């Protein structure tokens, strides 16, 4: 029982992060390898805001999300847009460079010390017994609920709003959209904003549950196989992929070898790449575009 709870909780974190990868990839065909670092940066921003506004999580969290979204928009205009027309991988490497800069800056600004967001936000992470041999904490429930809510919201956004439709159109064929007289860069920037916003949600939840320190960025790198296994262009694929990867990881830890925990997502990824390289829900054409 606890096993499955652990899988679902871990999957919810992965799904939140994978959503960011997918949003960004759909928008700008870029794999954002700084996603984990941006998630960490958002968490540190939350930490700083929380030091100014202690115990007011209702103010801290929206402020953090807003700030993170603005950072996302800024990144698109400053670093990604100038890379248009250049080899795709160059843009990916720009995100890698960005991640390295963030790692350095975080240490410079916030020191390498471990911080606890939960204390600052005055959140008590209580344990709830779901069944004999199966407990879950308040924040873990929050993580699952938020992940599901976010995916529902994104699905609605892409189906019913004009901007959502435009973003789908831009994902499919940006030049055609430009032909219709729409500045797709603005749409891409919005997508980046949304993506970094979701990263901030994941970051705040994850670091409140666990700890805030420089190594949490690693979880971003581990979530990236999730996005690929699900299909880089497919939001719907991210949910089952997150469950699959989390299942593989938790199984590896509990039944095979704990040291496999970092490797497990990538083993799943390799298997997926060999069997179904376009992902669970992607289409083979996706491969041609990369």
């Amino acid at each position: 029982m606890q096993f499955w709870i652990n899988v679902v909780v871990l999957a919810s974190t992965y799904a939140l992060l994978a959503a960011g990868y997918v949003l960004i990839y759909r928008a700008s065909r870029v794999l954002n390898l700084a996603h984990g670092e941006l998630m960490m940066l958002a968490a540190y921003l939350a930490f700083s805001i929380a030091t100014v506004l202690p115990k007011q999580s209702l103010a801290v969290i929206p402020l953090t999300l807003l700030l993170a979204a603005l950072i996302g928009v800024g990144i698109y205009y400053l670093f990604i847009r100038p890379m248009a027309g250049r080899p795709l991988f160059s843009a990916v490497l720009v995100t890698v460079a960005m991640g390295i800069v963030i790692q350095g800056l975080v240490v410079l600004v916030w020191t390498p010390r471990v911080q606890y967001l939960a204390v600052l936000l005055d959140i008590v992470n209580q344990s709830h017994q779901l069944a004999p041999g199966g407990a879950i904490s308040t924040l873990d429930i929050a993580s699952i609920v938020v992940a599901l809510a976010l995916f529902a919201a994104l699905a609605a956004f892409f189906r019913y709003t004009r901007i959502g439709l435009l973003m789908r159109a831009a994902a499919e064929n940006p030049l055609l959209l430009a032909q219709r007289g729409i500045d797709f860069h603005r749409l891409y920037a919005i997508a980046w904003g949304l993506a970094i916003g979701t990263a901030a949600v994941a970051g705040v939840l994850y670091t409140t549950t666990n700890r805030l320190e420089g190594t949490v960025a690693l979880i971003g790198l581990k979530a990236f196989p999730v996005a690929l296994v699900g299909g880089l262009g497919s939001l719907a694929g991210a949910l089952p992929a997150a469950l699959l990867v989390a299942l593989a990881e938790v199984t590896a830890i509990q039944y095979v070898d704990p040291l496999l925990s970092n490797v497990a997502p990538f083993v799943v990824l390799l298997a997926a790449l060999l069997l179904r390289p376009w992902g669970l829900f992607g289409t083979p054409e996706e491969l041609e575009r990369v």
Partner: protein
Amino acid sequence: MAMDRHKKIGQKAHASSQAWPGLRRQGILQWLALALLLAFPFIVNPFLLDLANLIALASIGALALNILIGWAGLISLGHAALLGAGAFTVGIMIEEFGAPIWITVPAAAGMGAAIGFVVGLPSVRLKGLYLAVSTLALHFIVVFLGGEYQTHHNLSTGIVIPDPALGPFVLSDRRAWFYVLVLAAAAATVFSVNLLRTRTGRAWLALRDRDIAASAIGVNLTAYKLAAFVVSAAMTSFAGALTAYYQHFVAVEAFSFFLTIQYVAMVLVGGPGSIAGAIVGAAFVIALPQGVNLAISSLSVPPQLKIYTFAVNYALFGLLMGGFLLFEPGGLVRLAVRLWGRLEALLPTATAVELRRPGRAQGPLQLKDDAMAAFTTASSTTDCLLDVAGLTVSYSGLALAVDHLSIRVPAGSIVALLGANGAGKTTTLRAISGFLPTETARITSGTIRFDGQLLDGLAPDRIARSGAVLVPERDKIFATLTVEQNLSIVPTSAPSGNRRAALREAIATYFPILQERQRQLAGYLSGGERQQLAMASALLRDPRLLLVDELSLGLAPALVQELMRLLEVLRRELALTILLVEQNAAAALNIADYAYILSTGRLVKQGPAKELLADAAVQELYLGVSASRRSYRQTAVEQRQ
């Protein structure tokens, strides 16, 4: 793009070396450099010697990665894993069998080649980012296996490697190491230089520049991709093996993902594709932290802040890497060439070397036909809604796709731009609608005026908003949206409600099928329906000039005729001007007022549509025969290019 940049660099450097007065000065310099190199270990302190050795080691790894990234255009994120594989091969062979260096190092290279082969296998199926990602997976797997070996053999602090012995000679002194490593790095350099001269090397460059093009000229993609992986991996593991001996230990912590990034940065910062670049990049990345330490310690910062040196280093490394990617993708070598060029311009002996622009330096074609005044140069530009003058477009700075083309489209007319496949029609249309900057092509000369305004350099969406709207050749609708959604995302820019209503009514009248299919995904529409949806979407923008690219493509002749007629009706009803780009000349000439015929990028004939239609020679020479006989496969390859 990068290849011809590299070529230019080579040419320029070559030319400038000839500009030097004789070779003697260079000869002296070379001897001096050699003497400096030989004396180096004896004139610097041990720490610097260590640094130089590390740079020599790193340059082997960087040269190896350059083969993949710089030449074959294959991205690998498994570089640290391959270095680790080499180092662990040495470590394990020493730990288990006490193997000597002349067995371990070749074995490590062999191990690298084997891993390279396995990692290269997915490249048969995967491209670009997906391939990079599969090599990233390799990284985590190798690190895991190394860690497993260390833990299960209780090698807490890594595997200790004794000084290597070759017969009676034991390599322990760092000075001796310097010569060995410099020699190894030199060998790697010579190997790289020669590799590029082989058929394989040239095939890699072709592969990097364009997969499909390479396969079209008969390069066996799979074999060459695999070869690139195997050669690069073997070299990398060789470097890893030497590193193990040099460092005296192998520990899995040393092979972090950041190490991979450092090597990628070496290639990028030095200059991708350049051998000198890989070496300079290696030196730069290895020496950078020391430079930062030096700067920090000379700034007399309080010792408490020492804690942050590493973070400063880290951030600075990221900034530099990003900076080169954004601002100088050619790397340090390109930067040096540029600075060198500036410097050379100041030297009295230097002669400026101008690369000759490819292409013919002749003026625009003299047109004799002046049958219709509005279409000829005689009339003033304001009469023409679209005026293209002397347009030249080149691909990758070399091949000319369009050569000094001048066409005019008066308001209210239908003008056809005809020609066989590859004649440059679509390129012209893309130049007009502002799509070129997003591709490898660019406008090298000429002007495009729309309603008297210059369009050059405007983004596609700006051009569309100014009233010149394109109905593209393919991918003309959003397949994942419904018909209704396709129409709803078009911003209606019509000035008055009346006009907007008129547009909607026209669409409802002339494209009734769209009404019926409005809930359907556009991806499921038939070819004709797609064309109608695309035209309707374009009309919603209230265009003054409608640019229609290959309306007939893939449609039945009867349907083509019907759509052509529809265009004529729309022109009348909505007061449109239409530029029609067509392979199907007969259908286009039926509704056009005037037509231009292109062949290999140049204007070969123009005239009133009726005259051209009647001209049998025109049909035979430029329109019919050659185009229709092209096989589908050939066409597909060209269109992808």
